[in-house]
């Protein structure tokens, strides 16, 4: 994503106009490729579409401001979305969100929906950090090391969060 010198020596300073154009192109490509996925990730974390959109857009704004210093824009964006969702989630996790989800369920799949909604309801009860770890593990498909990187903890902690989250999930589902 970064421009490099083709001569093997230090990269010559780019003209401001060139740097801005490169940033815009990179940001535009990232937006095209990741916006929808990030909104869905944020939605899974906060259960509110408008909040999810705002979180993702804030993350893009944040990324835009730090673009020149970010080595992995995609990873930075995902971490910013998760952190934004966690901040939002702590403030605004509401029971009513669960009710909203029932309104969004797809008619005609009642039998399976019950099972999945039951799972999601149980997930909603989990502590926020366990909830986030499970989403990263089972929705995004991250490894323990990758989850740790996003959450800013050790891999052992991430693994533990997932393990305990699953245990708690099972307990809640058995109720």
């Amino acid at each position, binding site marked *: 994503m970064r421009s490099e010198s083709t001569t093997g020596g230090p990269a010559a300073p780019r003209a401001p106009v060139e740097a801005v154009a490169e940033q*815009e192109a990179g*940001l*535009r490509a990232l*937006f*095209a490729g990741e*916006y*929808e996925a990030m*909104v*869905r*990730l944020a*939605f*899974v974390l906060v259960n509110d579409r*408008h*909040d*999810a*959109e*705002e979180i993702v*857009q*804030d993350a*893009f*704004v944040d990324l*835009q401001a730090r673009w020149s210093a970010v080595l992995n824009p995609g990873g930075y964006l995902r971490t910013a979305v998760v952190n934004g969702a966690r901040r939002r989630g*702590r*403030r605004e996790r509401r029971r009513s969100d669960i009710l909203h*989800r029932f309104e*969004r*369920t*797809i008619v005609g799949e009642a039998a399976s929906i019950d*099972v*999945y*909604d039951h*799972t*999601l309801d149980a*997930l909603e009860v989990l*502590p*926020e*950090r*366990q909830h986030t770890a*499970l*989403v990263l*593990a*089972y*929705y995004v498909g991250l*490894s*323990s090391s990758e989850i740790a990187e996003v959450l*800013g*903890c*050790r891999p*052992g*902690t991430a693994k*533990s*969060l*997932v*393990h*305990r989250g*699953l245990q708690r*999930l*099972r*307990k809640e*589902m058995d109720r």
Partner: protein
Amino acid sequence: MSEFPDAPRLAEALQRQAQSIQIDPAERAAAEERLLGGDVTVLRLRSESPVGPPRRNRSLALVAAALAIVVVAALLPQRDSGTGEVATEPPESVDESAVVLGLPSLVPGHCQALDGAVRRYSVGGSEVLVGGTYLSAIDARSVVVLVPPGLPGGRQMVLDGLADQDVIAYVVDAGEEIRPVLEELVPIACGPGRQLVDLGTGRASEVACLDYGGTGFAGFVFVGPTQPPVGCITKQFTLVIDDEPLADEPGWLDVYGCDGGSVFGLDDERNVRKTYYDCDSQLLFTDTESDPLESTFNGEPLLTFIRRNVGLN
């Protein structure tokens, strides 16, 4: 990642949840234009609440208020967290060597009630501040002492203070990794079959109180928000377990005491909060609505305890 039999169902449920929303192409295009068109202000405020001030503005107002509080607090002298008076001497009723350690007394077989007050006193001609909420009994003979930053000769002072007491002291300097100490100690308190809860990134500078006493279960850790500046001590805490902050909002909780099954404190509006932990699930439950008149602490009515130890009316 796990043997959990419902994991595929969880993955499927999350996929369905994610796919249950429709991304509006027009909204997406507008967001892209706002972002790449440079109108960041509009983008940031696009989700304004239809009623009341914009969320962003409310957040800014909260941040401004918090900063104001921090500035005012920094200008104020250190206060005893219980009485509101500037503490210059240890309470007469408490043994001075114990005060040095922030330890009112050692009661065999049970974790101590720690009052959390910040006290000033003289050690070797130097005035030092010591908070009270960073020592906990592991069992009748073992204690962990967190030496706060900025305490001159703190480690030796603690060891000297404990020299004539029949305990094994594990002294941890602020900033020092505390996990090895805990891993060594926890089997003492927890016995076979118990495991140390994952302490995550908790380091000594953050750990204020370790409670493994009484229950014989792996307990919980109080983590301060940041490395405290010299002299401030970790007076304010967030209750956590499994790295999960449980009382970070609406205000910090001043922890005044804990025992084998509960901890109580006052929030920033001086309301009594009492938190219970479930040993089986290793979870804390904060009950902000509990009636202090009906609550007990160490078998004593909570309000009586508070009046006696904290000075709250």
